[in-house]
């Protein structure tokens, strides 16, 4: 509604998109080298927009949505998904592992910079 009142350019927009940070935080993606055993987790991550994540402190973005997250004392972040389920971001050294409630898991790796885009 904010958009409708202030800008003619967004006339008709009815959904709100999370404002992803332009530079801060890091972009992470599922690690494709995890092998076939990780393919259920890879597919699950993709359909939920979590195949590529921006992690900026306690803020986690998946596609145009900001995921609600709670960080436990051991550093594990529990992310709430739109369908009511959850997934854990588990620190693993310098990286993370994404673990879904159904047991599917896949490591994440930091995304290399895209050609022509400054990260």
């Amino acid at each position, binding site marked *: 509604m904010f*958009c409708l009142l202030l800008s*003619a*350019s*967004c*006339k*008709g*927009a*009815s*959904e*709100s*998109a*999370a*404002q*992803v*940070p*332009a530079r801060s935080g890091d*972009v992470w*993606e599922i690690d*494709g080298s995890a*092998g*076939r055993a990780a*393919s*259920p987790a*890879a*597919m*699950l991550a*993709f*359909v*939920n*927009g*979590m*195949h*590529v994540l*921006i992690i900026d402190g306690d803020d986690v*973005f*998946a*596609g*145009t*949505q900001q995921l609600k997250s709670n960080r436990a004392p051991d550093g594990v972040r529990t992310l709430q998904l*739109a*369908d009511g389920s959850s997934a854990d971001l588990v620190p693993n050294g310098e990286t993370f592992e994404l673990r879904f409630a159904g047991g599917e898991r896949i490591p994440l790796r930091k995304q290399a910079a*895209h*050609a*022509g*885009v400054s990260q």
Partner: protein
Amino acid sequence: MKAIIVFALLLSAATVEAQSDSLDDRLVALTFHKLIGETIDLRAAGERSPLVQRASGFDRPDVIKAEVARLESDLARADARHEFVVRVNDNISEYDHDRGEFSIMLFKPGVYIDIQALGQQYRLVFGNADALRAIPFPNREEARAFDAKLTSAGRFVSNEIRFRVVGAGDPSGSVTGAHVVRAEILSARLLDRRGAVVFTPRVSAPTAVAEAKSTSAEVNDVAGLHVGVRAKDLEATMQRMYGVVTHQKRSTNWFAGYQSALVVNDMKCMDMPGQRGGPPKPGTVCVTAWLDGSDVVRSIRVERVFSYMDPETFRSTLVKKYGPVSSAKEAGRYALGWGTPVDSSLVYDRSGPRTSVAAYYDASDDMFSRSMNALPRIRVILQLVDAGWATSKH
């Protein structure tokens, strides 16, 4: 009649012949056509009947006439409330120690009863089969005794199912084809060779005769990307997560309401002969977002290239996300659809589902994969159309 249990193309093939004369297959087919409102050419169906095929040339016109009259009569009495009974030879899986249960093969996703009627093939699937699939035995000693009993009988049972025809299509998305008959199990029991009851699956309260389950008309994102948002917000996300965004102007073959598009990695997820840089690598992501005249995102297509992934992983993950499938196709690529029907100009592949949400499983078939006998890469394509907006544009 000869009904046969068959695994869908996606799963490993297994065929088991049903017990003969246990199902009025013609009435199943006619009930299906009547229920979904699909016109059937009774004259052509009559001409294909075995009686007509066996008739002499002299008698054939009269036999056709009688056969068509019989079909018309059967169609008139076809009623969605009719309860059918079929008996099929089935088997029971080995014990699953993790889940503490056995499984009934017929009730697994991808298994259907093959019916030949009216001169064509029908695939009979049970929409509530998954709820009846398990034979729970949490107690291992009881499971062991049950297993021994099954082993002595070669694990084969006769599955007697009472059902009603409720619509078209397989809600699990596993079984595709021109005539997929969706039925609902009212009761079932597994019998041994002597006719003694081995197990009686528990059927929850049946739904109404008409197909009651609505699909996910309210879906507004694919792969976390939403329609109905401002283009500049989506562009910032695409740029940060997926790469350089290019702007495309309206093309003549686009849907009338689209004015421009935001694109990342245009066509770089597709396998094309001789393409620069070689075939797409696993992990490549491609996004196209179509915008209306007010720069609002009205449709999104997201593609990702995976190392090999089996179609069952694709299917089961999407069903978990979007619920029962409203349309499943397998014409070149495996495709599933959900949500509201949309105009064919809005869908990615016109031979696939014409629904507001669609997912495609596309296996690469390049010369390198074939020559190395390697598993193909898989391109998964998700597309979402803002159906409410699209309807208003017609």
